[in-house]
């Protein structure tokens, strides 16, 4: 999921989101790290953001001057917009990004809505746990990030010295044992394949997961098709046929996206009440809505 070939955010049709994100992350377009491997660099697949923690840390800590001014809404929006832009090519990474998106969105909802005392205590504790887990994982990630910086400095410093590798003088060579004793041609073949073979395609372990179609743009398309005819409908109804968490998450993201674009109205009778969704946009806006979301490949 390299961003190298992505159009700049400003060109993104989802301008409503884009402007906000752009302001929050002026460095995203120019890239604050090399997105492509330079000549001679280890050919690790470089991604603009190495995972959801990386992205979230960046969003929260990017501007250390304003550490205390960080606004959760801005961060959630920027995070969702970034996830939206990504070409999430495998379900595994998509799920991680989306699960954290779900936690963030829930966090944001808590801030916006009054606390409901009647809420299920187990659920409440569950959410606290999730939030604390996210926090500790972020701290762990940050710890290793900082350690990696020191690794880089150590490697740079070490690279200033070249080791002596000239080896034995000719007259001693006869004394050394035959290095090829015991080496079989097959060992050479395996050694060659080990060092020269392409990495296997990133595979998703589908052993326990049936292929889940999780695409925000598909969900948007589905809503754009179905919602105008349905009138007011609850989010629960919209997701009733979907048991996979990631499917519910992408539909929730789709609802947020449509809301942002002014296509739908959202109502919630009280904290943790059922979300009600109503289509309010005209026919002409539909294409914009569809163009506004990048694909999540499930």
């Amino acid at each position, binding site marked *: 999921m390299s961003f190298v070939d992505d159009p700049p955010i400003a060109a993104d049709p989802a301008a409503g989101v884009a402007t906000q994100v752009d302001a929050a992350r002026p460095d995203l377009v120019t890239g604050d790290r090399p997105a492509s491997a330079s000549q001679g660099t280890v050919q690790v697949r470089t991604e603009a953001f190495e995972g959801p923690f990386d992205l979230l840390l960046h969003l929260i800590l990017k501007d*250390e001057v304003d550490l205390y001014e*960080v606004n959760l809404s801005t961060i959630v929006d920027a995070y969702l917009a970034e996830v939206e832009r990504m070409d999430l090519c495998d379900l595994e990474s998509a799920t991680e990004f989306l699960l954290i998106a779900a936690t963030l969105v829930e966090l944001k909802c808590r801030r916006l809505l009054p606390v409901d005392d009647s809420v299920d205590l187990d659920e409440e504790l569950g959410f606290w746990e999730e939030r604390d887990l996210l926090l500790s994982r972020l701290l762990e990630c940050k710890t290793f990030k900082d350690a990696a910086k020191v690794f880089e400095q150590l490697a740079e410093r070490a690279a200033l010295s070249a*080791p002596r590798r000239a080896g034995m003088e000719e007259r001693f060579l006869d004394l050394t044992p035959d290095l090829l004793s015991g080496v079989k041609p097959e060992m050479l073949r395996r050694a060659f394949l080990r*060092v020269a073979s392409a990495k296997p395609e990133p595979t998703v372990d589908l052993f326990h997961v049936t292929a889940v179609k999780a695409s925000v743009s598909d969900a948007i398309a589905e809503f754009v098709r179905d919602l105008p005819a349905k009138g007011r409908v609850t989010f629960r109804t919209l997701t009733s046929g979907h048991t996979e968490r990631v499917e519910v998450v992408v539909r929730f993201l789709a609802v947020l996206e449509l809301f942002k674009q002014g296509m739908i109205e959202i109502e919630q009778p009280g904290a943790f009440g059922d979300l009600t969704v109503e289509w309010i946009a005209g026919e002409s806006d539909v294409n914009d809505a569809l163009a506004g979301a990048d694909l999540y490949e499930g």
Partner: protein
Amino acid sequence: MHHPEDPNPTAPEGPAFDDTAFDDTAFDDTVIDLTEPSTDPLTEASRAIEAIVMVATDPIPEQLLAQLVELPVVTVRAICADLANQYLAEGRGFQFVEVAGGWRYQSHPAQAPYVERFALEGQTARLSGAALETLAIVAYKQPISRGQVSAIRGVNADGVLRTLEQRGYICEVGRDDGPGQAILLGTTDIFCERLGLGSPDDLPALGDFVPSAAVVEALEQTLRVDDHPGGDADASADHAAEA
């Protein structure tokens, strides 16, 4: 032309070259005590160690040196440290250093521009940010499974780990006892060489990298559950009471 006597016993003719351009008095200061060159076993061992490490292609562990010169490891260690200091004091263009569990000769960092000019081919590739972070996780958490690395990074780390393995920085060091018997990974000597470490123990303590209070607070503030505009002390108090 003054020719210093070679203190190495049974030494044949020294350098195949006489030079008159240099002031021969310059050598008088550097000549060490030549009165009893070969009777001192420490001096003898020191020379043997210089010779052995000079022809070695990899760092030589003190244990092996001790075995070859037939002296205790502690003595060998002292000799090696002394040699390192001698070259340093003399301002040599090379160093004698302990890297990846052994001693080796290497060029002095200050001479890097000249060495780079000379060694044009096959420079070691730079490590990407992802590779460095993954390497840090393996280095500090070893032995660790691929799945655990991925969990910490929040993304599938298999590709990066495979590259690091191909480069020889990490390798399989065992199997997990658990039902899956997951492969456990650890760092290699090549990793130590790349970072200029005597051993992984020479890494700075992971505790040194625990995020600062400001960072922790920023994360907590941002991800706190209750939103009290202004995020004042009340919020923290509420938070504490509720938690």
